[in-house]
Every structure is written in C-alpha cells, then in structure tokens.
C-alpha cells in the first residue's frame, strides 16, 4: 500500500506569511507525529496525535505553530507569521498504534522562509 505522503514537497514563503503543510498517513494508522529537521541535525519531535486529538504538543516551539487532525486521518501543520528560523524540513510519521511500533516517515516538506 501507499506510504506516508506529504504536500507540498517544497514551500518557499516570505517572512510573516502563513503556511499549511499536509500529511496523509498510512491508512489505518491511528498515531501520527510531526517532526522538524534542521540542516545537519536529526529530526526533533513537535506533536503527536492519537486519533483526532493532539495527545502531546510539548515539542511545538511557540504558539505560532498549530496542528489539526479533524477526522483522525489527514493532518495539517499550520505556521503563522513565519520567521526565517522556521526554515527546515518538516517530517510526518505514522504508526499502527501508540507504544512500541515502528514509525513510518513521509518524504518531508522543505520549508524556506525568505
């Protein structure tokens, strides 16, 4: 079956603009994660969804970042008033359930804030 997909693959925006990044998890996966990867670093956890609810958003850097998953499948990461420091690759992962399950990663969205 299809893996995790993310759109767009690349997004270039100007400082101060609003952006939305979309993640389509593997069908049937109830757990969904967002990570952010800066150049030369490993991914950093942002937020975790179990079903429709954000079970843990402790990794979101500030209140400009928000994510939703209204129907328990597709998720959207929203960034308001983007800053140059938000430039990174945003990765989405899904797993069959919570706990010790392999997380399957999407190809990521490369965000560049000019």
């Amino acid at each position, binding site marked *: 079956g299809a893996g995790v997909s993310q759109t767009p693959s690349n997004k270039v925006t100007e400082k101060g603009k609003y952006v939305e990044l979309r993640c389509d998890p593997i069908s049937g996966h109830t757990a969904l994660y967002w990570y952010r990867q800066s150049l030369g670093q490993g991914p950093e956890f942002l937020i975790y969804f179990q079903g429709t609810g954000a079970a843990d958003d402790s990794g979101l850097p500030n209140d400009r970042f928000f994510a939703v998953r209204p129907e328990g499948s597709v998720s959207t990461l929203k960034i308001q008033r983007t800053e140059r420091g938000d430039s990174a690759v945003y*990765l989405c992962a899904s797993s069959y359930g919570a706990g010790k399950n392999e997380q399957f990663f999407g190809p990521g969205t490369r965000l560049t804030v000019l």
Partner: protein
Amino acid sequence: SQELEQSPQSLIVQEGKNLTINCTSSKTLYGLYWYKQKYGEGLIFLMMLQKGGEEKSHEKITAKLDEKKQQSSLHITASQPSHAGIYLCGAARNLIQGAQKLVFGQGTRLTINP
C-alpha cells in the same frame, strides 16, 4: 549537549570495507531505532532494538544494543554504494497514553568510494 551523540559525524570508506557507527545516550535506553535517510527523502526504518544485549541483522547491516553503557552500534559489512546516506539513531521516549516519541542523534553521513 545532545541527548543522543553519534560518532563519527561523517565517514568515508572504500567500497567493500567494513564500518561501524556508534550512538551514545545520556539517558537510559528503553528502545533504540536505526533509520537511514537520503537527501530529499524520508527516513527508512532499518532496525529496532529493545533489550539489553539484543542484536539484529538485515542483509549486511547489524545493530547491537548495550543497555549498561547506554550505547548502540551499527555495523556494515562489505560496504556497497547503496549503503551511502545519513544514518540516524533514535531513542524512544515515553509520551502519555503509552505512546513514544523518538529523540534523534545528529546523524552520521556515510560516503562510499568506489
């Protein structure tokens, strides 16, 4: 300092040679994941280790977990050009509701010279 330190950060080896990548945690390891990443792509799951002393192999890649030393190593035998990429170790850290997030090292960039 990073919670997970990988060494070396960069590695260049001749095709056919063996190599080892190390991952050391500053906290107790309850589960350790190894992923591989190529530029512009998501993370590809390699192996998951959960018990002290556990060792897993897939094709020419072997990973071991030493819980006492809070370390894991990834060993590639008879390296091939297809092994080139960035190798990331990720430690499982508990979230609520039994879920786990992954905390990653900074990655090891592996280049294979023909």
